[in-house]
């Protein structure tokens, strides 16, 4: 397995407050990595470092190196728009544009300058299929995305991120606002997607992390406490803090 993204000694400051302490973590292509930990532990802060979403936070400062295929994403010459095309993101709440289903997925392609309508239609269908949504919406592609259910909207957002063919997909609690059936659909689509893609997912659901991830990283108080294969983390974690958190003995 090749390493797609690599964080070396990454720290994040909000003003004088050090929110993340010297994190070292690598993400392999074709694998899903779950970031877990209590609220405020730094996992979402770390996730946002991976496509420079922290640039948008006033007073935020990132130290250390994050490499995407060997290139430092924090280098001054980095084209942030290009970075975010290669490192897509799906957020906690579904956020479709008030456009048709088709146009939601086509949006990124048009922004990136694609004009061939046949090619766009092909990419839209592929992205919707990979997000396990196409069969449910193929007869109403030009209806408003706002008429979809919550779970369908979230898969639409996944399709929208996939349309521009990213190498890495970041997911920040993508199923936390969904019912169990919609959650299952999203989880299934994540597992379908991982081939050829690097997926990093923040989740508060231990069961979800155990179900869908290949690797798990446990964060606590801004530090990476333990990282390893999900099978190992959820059966015999090495660190007591990890054991206490995943078995609900924290606090």
């Amino acid at each position, binding site marked *: 397995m090749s390493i797609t993204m690599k964080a070396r000694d990454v720290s994040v400051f909000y003003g004088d407050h050090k929110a993340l302490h010297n994190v070292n973590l690598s993400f392999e292509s074709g694998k899903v990595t779950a970031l877990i930990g209590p609220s405020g532990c730094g996992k979402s802060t770390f996730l946002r470092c991976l496509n420079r979403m922290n640039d948008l936070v006033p007073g935020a400062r990132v130290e250390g190196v994050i490499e995407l295929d060997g290139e430092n994403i924090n280098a001054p010459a980095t084209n942030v728009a290009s970075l975010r095309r290669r490192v897509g993101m799906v957020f906690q709440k579904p956020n479709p544009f008030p456009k048709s289903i088709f146009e939601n997925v086509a949006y990124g392609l048009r922004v990136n300058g694609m004009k061939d309508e046949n090619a766009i239609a092909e990419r839209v269908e592929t992205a919707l299929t990979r997000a396990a949504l196409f069969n449910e919406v193929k007869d109403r592609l030009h209806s408003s995305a706002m008429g979809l259910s919550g779970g369908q909207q979230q898969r639409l957002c996944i399709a929208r991120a996939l349309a521009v063919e990213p190498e890495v997909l970041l997911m920040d609690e993508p199923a936390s606002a969904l019912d169990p059936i919609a959650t299952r659909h999203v989880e299934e689509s994540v597992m379908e997607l991982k081939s050829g893609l690097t997926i990093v997912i923040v989740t508060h659901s231990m069961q979800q992390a155990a179900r869908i991830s290949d690797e798990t990283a446990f964060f606590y108080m801004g530090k990476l406490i333990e990282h390893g294969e999900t099978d190992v983390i959820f*059966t*015999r*974690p090495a660190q007591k803090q*990890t*054991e206490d958190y995943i*078995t609900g003995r924290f606090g």
Partner: protein
Amino acid sequence: MESILCEDSPRQMLATLRTRLLVMFAHAGIALDESGKALSQDDAARALAVQEGDAVIDELENEIDELCLRVMARLQPVAGDLRFVVAALRMVVDLERIGDEAASIAERVLLLHELPIKEEDMRRLREMFAQARAAFAQAADAFREEDAEAARSLRAAEDDAMQAEVALLQALMPMPGEDGRVSGDPRAAIHAMLIVRSLTRVWRRSANIAEQVYFMRHGASLKHELVR
């Protein structure tokens, strides 16, 4: 004092599972002790009580199985909690069988009641009973104290049990003397040998329980370690 935990809180459910396992350990231990006393004292009433008491151990097995299912369904345990539930599901099988072996020994005591058994053979049976009982006590202590090292020290118990069984079966086998006559009652010898089989199983199942205690603590199998 009344517990402040609600009955079905995660911690309470796991604590209940542990408590019920300890109760099952105690019942299996008492059944063994009573069957041993029935054997030593040729006490038919005690032997009958052991047989009747086996139903309690069977009920505990069902109860603990059910509790494990509820814990899995409701808590979806991971890490140490998961290993504990998996080990519990395995240990109840061994404990239930140890109860069965105690009942089986009691049955043999009843069948031996009218038969003559040589004092030397009875001494050998008592010795092996003490060894099997000690292995069970060690496994129970290891579980109660969550002591993986104590559990590990039982890893040779299977071999010990096998060797003791072979030696005792050879000693109990009715053999013709120089005059060609077989001393002792062959029926008594058969019952004594079946008691030896039961004691071997108790001893080996105690080793199984110890393996589960080790697994609970370390998530590793002693059995595989032995194979290597």
